[in-house]
């Protein structure tokens, strides 16, 4: 199972506590994980990536295994530790001052 950690507001929208566990078929990539996440929680559509272009929203970042994966291709395989469930795929709201 793929482990996904959502930020506070998206956990509230999805009505989940803690990590989300997803079964993902085929290659484990940003795209396949996000596709599975949105299929399981349709209310998250449009909140992480654009409805039409599927581009990552500007203030959303993707981290895993102490790496920032935000700028990479959505079709690059995620780290093995994410694919085998040892490490979570982190969806993070970018920090903002105030």
């Amino acid at each position, binding site marked *: 199972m793929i482990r996904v950690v959502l*930020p*506070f*507001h*998206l956990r509230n*929208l999805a009505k989940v506590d803690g990590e989300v566990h997803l079964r993902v078929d085929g290659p484990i990539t940003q795209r396949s994980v996000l596709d599975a996440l949105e299929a399981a929680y349709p*209310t998250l*559509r*449009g*909140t*992480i990536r654009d*409805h*039409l272009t599927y581009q990552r*929203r500007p*203030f*959303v970042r993707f981290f895993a295994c102490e790496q920032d994966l935000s700028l990479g291709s959505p079709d690059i395989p995620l780290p093995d530790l994410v694919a085998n469930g040892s490490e979570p795929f982190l969806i993070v*709201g*970018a920090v*903002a001052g105030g």
Partner: protein
Amino acid sequence: MSGVRVLVGTRKGAFILKSDGARRKWEVSGPHFAGWEIYHVKGSPADPNRLYASQSSGWFGQMIQRSDDGVVTWNPVDNKFAYDGVPGTHMWYDGTQHPWEFKRVWHIEPSATDPDTALAGVEDAALFRTTDGGGSWHELPGLRNHESGPRWQPGAGGMCLHTIIQDPKNPERIVIAISAAGAFRSDDGGATWKPINKGLSSKHIPDPTAEVGHCVHRIAMHPAHPNRLYMQKHWDIMRSDDAGDSWQKVSGNLPTDFGFPIDVHAHEPETIYVVPIKSDSEHFPIDGKLQVWRSKSGGNEWEPLTNGLPQTDCYVNVLRNAMAVDSLDSCGIYFGTTGGQVYASSDAGDTWAPIVRDLPAVLSVEVQTLS
């Protein structure tokens, strides 16, 4: 037993303020959707238990929430606002053409007769409709595809469609306003549109009397007189007696005619309210005195209403969607400030008192009058 429900959208959530018909004691609930910007919450005139809320975030985009039980529970509905066809371009700040990009929903206007039907005004300016309770939204593209569209330009707050008025006597007639394109009217249910800006004069655009380009801040209408419209423009209070075909300035003796909201008394179609703000460079009341001004003659002759409002050291603003009226026998007036206060008057503005003082900055105020 009658009562009111005041729907307050803020920078960090929605708040619901409830009272009985006396409007002296208030029950406050919230924040709903804590941490999200709530640009608008509005109830269906056809079913007071049906409400829609526009919930947005710079991080996570747009959500639309719906309540079917009078704000006890909320559930997200469709949040996909896709422009019809190839969106095209409008004027950008630097004079170049810029693609239309959806940013947020500013205003949701439920149908007077069908709880499942509502219009949504969005930034970048366009009008959408749902007929299935928010299950899906479809653009009415005739507005954005008006031949003047490529000349529309955002104001400092973005190119938002912030006002939607449906004529209660003619369901085919809709009036909308866009900052900073101006006012438009459809007489065929939103299929085609025409600018209704004749008589407006705006010094901040190259041709002050241009067909489009005016920064209209808000338009209000009394349902008994749908041809009479009142407008708070960037500067100037304007009035139309012919559904927007022509406008006359009615600023009269106001100390300043810059401001954002304007509204009409529920039972007196000639009685209107504005909140004068010092200038477009200083978005706060003159001399730190928060005043609502009332005209009982449809403009030109105005009186300040100060009883209960702070008259020293007050430097808040009142945004365009942040004033509303109830329809109880003694008309209630409500407005929210960028300082987080929501003030209420249960006597048509003669006296005021805060319902709450320390909310996040208030973006919108609507009222449901409950029987």
